[in-house]
Structure formats: C-alpha cells, structure tokens
C-alpha cells in the first residue's frame, strides 16, 4: 500500500483552484512587475541571452582584430575595453544569472512548491541585474573600464586610470552582486523550507542540490567581493590606501581578495551546469543517476574546497614556495570530486538505452569537453608549469574550455530540455542538432589552437602580434569563432521559430523523472493542482507506475476506489512522442 498525501484527498484539501476563467493577454507591465517565479525565471533567461549576444559580439570583434598579424582594426585602448566588457558581461551578467534563471523557473517546480520563498525580493533581484547592466553599458558613453575583468590594483587605481570607467564598473558589479546575493538567499530559504512532503535532502534532484550549493557559494564569495569593491572605490574616490604600496597598502591584497571571490565564482558558474547534466543524462539513458550520494557529496566537496584555492591564480607573484605548494595541493584536491562526477556520468551512460536527443548531445558535449578543461586545470595547478602558462592564451583556452565547453554546453542542454516546459512547445530537433555540431566544431576550432598559441609565447590581453609562428593559430581560432557564433544563432532562430509555431509538447515529452513534468506545459501560475508526496529520487516514475497500476486495475474490472493512490495525471497528457 502506497502512502497518500493528505492534501491529495478530495474534500479534505484546503486549496481552492479556480478554473475556466477567460485568459487575459499579459502586457509587458505584467511581466516586469510579476512575482511569479516562472515569469521571473524567463525574464532572467531573456536578459542573460541578450547580454550573451552582446558579449559574443565583443568576442567576435576581438577575434577579427587578432585574425591577422599587426592588425589595426581596433586601437589598443578599445581592445582593452572590449575584453574588460566581454569578461565582466559573460561572467557576472550571463553565466551567474542564467543559472538563477533556470533555478527560478525550476527549483519551486522540482521541489513541489508554489513559488519562491520571497517573491517580491525575487523581482528586485532581476531589476538590480538590469540596473547593473545599464550602468556598465551606460559607461560606454563616458569612459569604459579597461583593466580587464580582474581590474588588478594598482592599474585600476585613480593614478593610472583616472576616468570614470572603473567607477562605473565598481557600481555595476555592486548592483549585480547584491542581485545575486538576494537571489541566493531566496534559493536557500526556498530549498530548505518549501520542499514537497517526503522530499528529504536525500531525495532532492541533483539540479536543486547544485542550486543550493551555488547559492551558499554566492553568499560567501559575492558578499566578500562587495567589501573588496568598496575598498577599491574608497581608494579611487576618497584617497584610500588599501592597495597603494607607497602609503602602507598592498597591491597583492587586491589579488587575494579578488580571487577569494574569483575562484569560488568559477564553481558558482560550473556547478549548476553539472546539475543540468545530472538531470539530463539519466532521462535519456533511461537509467537512474549512478552514485546519487557521491554526486551530491562531491558538489558540496567542490564548493568547500573552492574557497581554499584562490592563490593558484597568483603563482607568479612574490609568494613563499610553501604557500605555492599548499595552493597546488588544494587545487589538486578539487580534481578528485570533479573526477567522481565525470566517472558517475559515465556510469550512468554505461548499459543505458541512450536516446540521442538534443539535450543529451549537449550534456555529453559537456562531459567530453569539460574533461579536457579539467585536465588542463590540473596542469595549471602544478606551479612550476604555471610559471610558463599563466597569463597566456593557454589560460584563455583553459577557462573557455571550462566555461564554454562546460557551462555553456550545460546551459544549452538545459535550454533544449526545459524549453518545452517553459513554452509548451518542442524546439526543432533538426535545428538543435545542427546547432550542436556547429558549436562543437566551432568551439574546438576556436580554443584548441589557443593552447598552442599560449605555449608558443602569446600572452593574453594583447591587441596585436607580429607575423610569424602565432599567425596560423590565430587565423584558425578566428574562423572557429565565427562557426561557433553561427551555431549559437541557429539556436536563437530555433527559439523564435518555436515560440511562433512549434509542436505542442504536452506535460512530459521526455518521460522524465522529476516533479516539474507533473504539471502542464507551461505550468499554471499556482504550479500544481495537487502537490504529490515524494517517495523516491524519481517521483515521476512512481506516479507513472501508480497510474499504470490503477489503469490495469480498472481494466481488470475492479473498482479503483477505497484508498488507492489518488495521485492524478495532469490534464491534457499527451502521448509519449517516443
């Protein structure tokens, strides 16, 4: 006898669901003032997608400049501004908030809640993100930051960059940082307090696990970064001396404080993508996730270790050898739980019944490419090797392998996987596969040659190089970047075409495992008519089994009343497209 949620019994439910009202068409005012977590999630996704295209155009401009030696397409100052904007945009305004976008839409649905804990705070987070974007991009009409996304002191001090660009950068990051921290507090509260009956931490979907850990890391890292930014602002505007070695300050202090945010930030960006892959692979391999407990534990372990590795970005600075050794070993330690995740994904695929749908392709793309990014990360952690590789194109290639080959492929997997839930329509498989292959080819053509360019002596952040051994690598890289851009545009086209005339998805097109597929697509504002009791890690499998049993009982002529499971299929269940 299976357990029944008390709330699921008709007549005892305290919830009143109103149906049959005519739908009112929403205006844009409804969207920007909404407190519905699903709409806020979609707002986040569109905002970050917009900034992703802006950051992508900046990247293409830089690749055009580097496409031929001694090029004069961009002057050096413009080039420095472009890579500063590109890094800041992609990290703080795309990858971090895009995870908040997926999290906003999905976390309440996956844990069986009706909304986030603080719906209005949620809206404020999105508005602060938009304000941060306006400040950063508003600065192009006055003066743009040009010290890189790392803005090392003393270059970022008022002595060397007296314009308002760095100040705008500081204010923009303050706004975005507050947005992220408020969002993180909201996630933590929601996940700890609002799970469906029966959903213990050990039955929580891995994506929710990663969003929980992501939120804790944001609270630790971005709060400390707010203080760091305030110190730089004091130095610049109020004659502070935090980073001025002539007055008792220390330029290395900036690097320590920056990377104390900067390295956890890497895992803030990567972990939610790991969560997406951990949801997608079991569904399309038709097998439960391999080693669930190890997967959840390794997420927490990666987060814990990630706050102890920051100085591996500073191996070339004057630090004692013992300190270098410590940070090498802690960086290696992160490789162990990361390796566990990769092996467990392989374990999930092994002996599965793998369906090659677009979400699976992107998820597998992440596994293959993140493995290479992780390997070059281990190489960089060996500090004598890092003395050769740091601040070169090897680093550029490594971090794009992790953040594009890893995170962006995970996000694409998530987009193709959950778009039917968000919009009610299926993205085109054909265009999705075209986009995937263009992105894989373009991505590798862009970044693999950059490893070699770095090894051959090309530092990062240079706007010009002379003809010679670096030319071939850069030409291939530039061609690859345009193939990659074409791949991204195919998906953008796919999204807009599908919104207009895509095939209806139905509530559960993938025969998936988690609760968001229990509601119609797109979900109603209250998410669930009835919140089911969770009995395992894969509640949708239980629900499907219950429905089958009941149908079998009905077919056998037995009367299905008398305390049988009352969990109902959502209305309008479509036949499985497979």
């Amino acid at each position, binding site marked *: 006898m299976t357990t029944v949620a008390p709330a699921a019994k008709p007549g005892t439910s305290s919830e009143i669901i109103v149906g049959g009202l005519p739908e009112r068409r929403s205006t844009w005012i409804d969207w920007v003032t909404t407190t519905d977590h699903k709409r806020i999630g979609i707002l986040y996704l569109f905002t970050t997608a917009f900034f992703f295209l802006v950051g992508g155009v900046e990247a293409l401009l830089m690749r055009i400049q580097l496409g031929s030696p001694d090029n004069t397409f961009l002057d050096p100052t413009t080039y420095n501004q472009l890579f500063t904007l590109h890094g800041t945009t992609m990290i703080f305004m795309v990858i971090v908030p895009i995870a908040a976008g997926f999290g906003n839409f999905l976390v309440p649905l996956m844990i069986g809640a009706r909304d986030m804990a603080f719906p209005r705070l949620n809206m404020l987070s999105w508005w602060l993100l938009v304000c941060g974007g306006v400040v950063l991009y508003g600065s192009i009409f006055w003066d743009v930051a040009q010290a890189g996304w790392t803005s090392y002191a003393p270059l970022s001090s008022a002595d060397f960059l007296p314009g308002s660009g760095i100040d705008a950068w500081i204010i923009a990051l303050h706004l975005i940082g507050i947005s992220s921290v408020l969002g993180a507090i909201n996630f933590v509260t929601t996940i700890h307090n609002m799970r469906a009956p029966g959903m213990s931490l050990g039955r929580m979907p891995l994506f929710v696990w990663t969003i929980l850990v992501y939120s804790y890391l944001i609270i630790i890292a971005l709060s400390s970064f707010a203080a760091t930014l305030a110190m730089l602002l004091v130095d610049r505007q109020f004659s502070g001396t935090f980073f001025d070695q002539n007055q008792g300050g220390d330029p290395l202090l900036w690097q320590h404080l920056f990377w104390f945010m900067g390295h956890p930030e890497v895992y803030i960006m990567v972990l939610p993508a790991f969560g997406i892959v951990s949801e997608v692979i079991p569904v399309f391999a038709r097998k439960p996730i391999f080693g669930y407990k190890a997967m959840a534990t390794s997420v927490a372990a990666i987060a814990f270790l990630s706050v102890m590795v920051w100085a591996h970005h500073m191996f070339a600075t004057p630090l004692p050898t013992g300190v270098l050794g410590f940070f090498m070993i802690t960086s290696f330690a992160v490789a162990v739980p990361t390796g566990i995740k990769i092996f467990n994904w392989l374990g999930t695929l092994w002996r599965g019944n793998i369906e*090659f749908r677009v979400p699976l392709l992107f998820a597998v793309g992440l596994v293959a490419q993140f493995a290479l990014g992780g390997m070059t990360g281990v190489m960089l952690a060996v500090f004598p090797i890092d003395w050769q590789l740091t601040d070169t194109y090897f680093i550029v290639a490594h971090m794009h392998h992790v953040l594009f080959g890893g995170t962006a492929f995970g996000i694409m997997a998530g987009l193709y996987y959950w778009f039917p839930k968000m919009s009610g329509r299926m993205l085109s498989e054909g265009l999705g596969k075209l986009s995937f292959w263009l992105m894989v080819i373009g991505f590798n053509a862009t970044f693999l040659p950059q490893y070699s360019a770095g090894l051959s002596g090309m530092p990062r952040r240079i706007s010009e190089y002379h003809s010679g051994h670096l030319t071939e690598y850069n030409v291939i890289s530039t061609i690859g970047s345009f193939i990659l851009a074409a791949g991204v545009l195919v998906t953008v086209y796919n999204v807009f075409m599908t919104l207009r005339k895509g095939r209806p998805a139905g509530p559960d097109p993938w025969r998936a495992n988690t609760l968001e597929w229990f509601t119609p697509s797109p979900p109603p504002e209250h998410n669930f008519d009835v919140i089911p009791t969770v009995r395992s890690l894969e509640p949708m499998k239980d629900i499907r089994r219950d429905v089958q049993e009941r149908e079998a009982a009905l077919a056998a002529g037995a009367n299905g009343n008398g305390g049988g499971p009352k969990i109902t299929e959502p209305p309008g269940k479509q036949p499985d497209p497979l």
Partner: protein
Amino acid sequence: MRGRAKPRAAAVVLLLAAVVAVLVLPGVAWADVLTPEDGPTPNAQKVDELYKIVFFIGIAVIGTVWVVLFYSLFRFRARRGRQAPQITGNTPLEIGWTAAATAIVAAITIVTYIYLDDITHPVPSGPEAVAEARDQYATINQPPPPGGKALDIQVSGQQFLWRYQYPNQAVSFHEMVVPRDTTVTLTLKANDVIHSWWIPALGGKLDAVPGYTNKTWFKVSKTGTYEGQCAELCGSGHYAMTAKVTVVEPDQYQAWVENQKKEIQEARTLVQKQRKTIEAELSQ
C-alpha cells in the same frame, strides 16, 4: 528507433578521432606544438620535462574517459524493446576510482617536488663565465653567499618599457645583453603598475609587483637572441611592452658593458655641458 544509423556513424567517427588523437598527440607534442618552449637554460628544460610528464598522465586519464564515453554512446544507443538495468551505484567501484584519482594527483605532487629544486635553484656558472660571476650558488629565495660572485641584473618594469641595471652602473632598455655560460640572476621590481617578466625560452614568468622584489634566473650555454613580452596587463601599451635577451660571448659582453658605460658617461658629460651653458645664459 528512428535515426539509428546516424548516432552509430557519429559514434564510429568520434571513436576513430579519439584513437587517432591519442596516437598522434605524442608525435605532435615533441614538435613543441603542445609543450612549452624547450629553451637553452636548465630551468626551462626542467619545466618542459615536468610539463611532459603531467601532460601524458593527463592524456592517459582523458583518453580513458573519452574511450569509455564514446564506447558507451555507441554500444548502448537506444534499441526498441531494450530495458536499461536500473543500477543506482556500485560502492567498491566508486571507492576505487576515488582512490585512483587521489593517487594520480598525489603522484603529480611528488613528481613536482622532485623537479622543484632544479627549477628554482640556480646552477653554478660554467668555466667560460665572465669573471665576476664564477662560483655562484645563490638560490632565488636567498641572497648570494658571502664572497659568492653573482651576475645580478636589476630588472625594472615601467609603463611600457623594461629597464636593466647591470653591475658596474651599465644600463640598458628593452634589450638585455648577457654573457654565455654564465648564471644570471634577475631581481625584479616595478615602478608603477604590475608587470610580468617572461622570455618563454628562458623559463617561467615572474610578476614584478610594486613594493615587492621577485627573483628568477637563467643560464644559457649558446649565443643567440630570445624574445618575450610583458605578460600582465599594464595599460594601453601592454601589447607593445616587449623584451629581448641577447646572449653573447663573455668577452663581447665585457666590451658591451664598457661601451654602455662610456656612452652613459658621454651623455652625462654632454648634459653637464649643456646645463652649464644654460646656467651661464640664465645668469647673464
């Protein structure tokens, strides 16, 4: 299952690509496409050796991951009517690969410490070194021993130029001239913002940070010119902050230092002469 032929073809192609990559990589690696510059100085050579060891460990690990991944995708692609076994884990296997991953990084740590001293400790100068730099055993973390003779060059980074101060007051910019077969220790400083000294063939880079002193070294056994550039963003002229090290015979070096000193002295005399003329004009 629709589209069965496509995933199979794709899987075969990818598996072949992985195998070819694993076979081809070692050959390419030795051609310096996938390894750092194998320079003419012992520290750069040791970094290169260490890199190759870690690189091949990494290739072995990642090759295994890729082969298992592509084999699974090919072998376990969806087939009608097949049910995947509902396995949720395998504790001995999971403990096994956790231990294996730990063992690999532990091994890399040990190898790194075996190589570390050879990379950071300068070797003694050779028999043909310039006289002022013989019997030099300083480590980069310690001052030279009393009586030890060091050819120590002070390197100062400033926007957007490197300045070198040699023993005996000789000075040069952009191009550093050093004698062959002599251990050269560099003392790095920065005058304005952070710069990073990097000549790829002469070993790893080192940051010049305002308020700090950083040390590195090299010893080149054959003459030649080695180029590099600032590796830490230092402003709008960062891309143009290049550096060149020219290694010459010891006697040529002595002649070059004398010439530099002479030219500097001549310039000073000229300046003094001009100042006197100006002062005389002003006092009139």
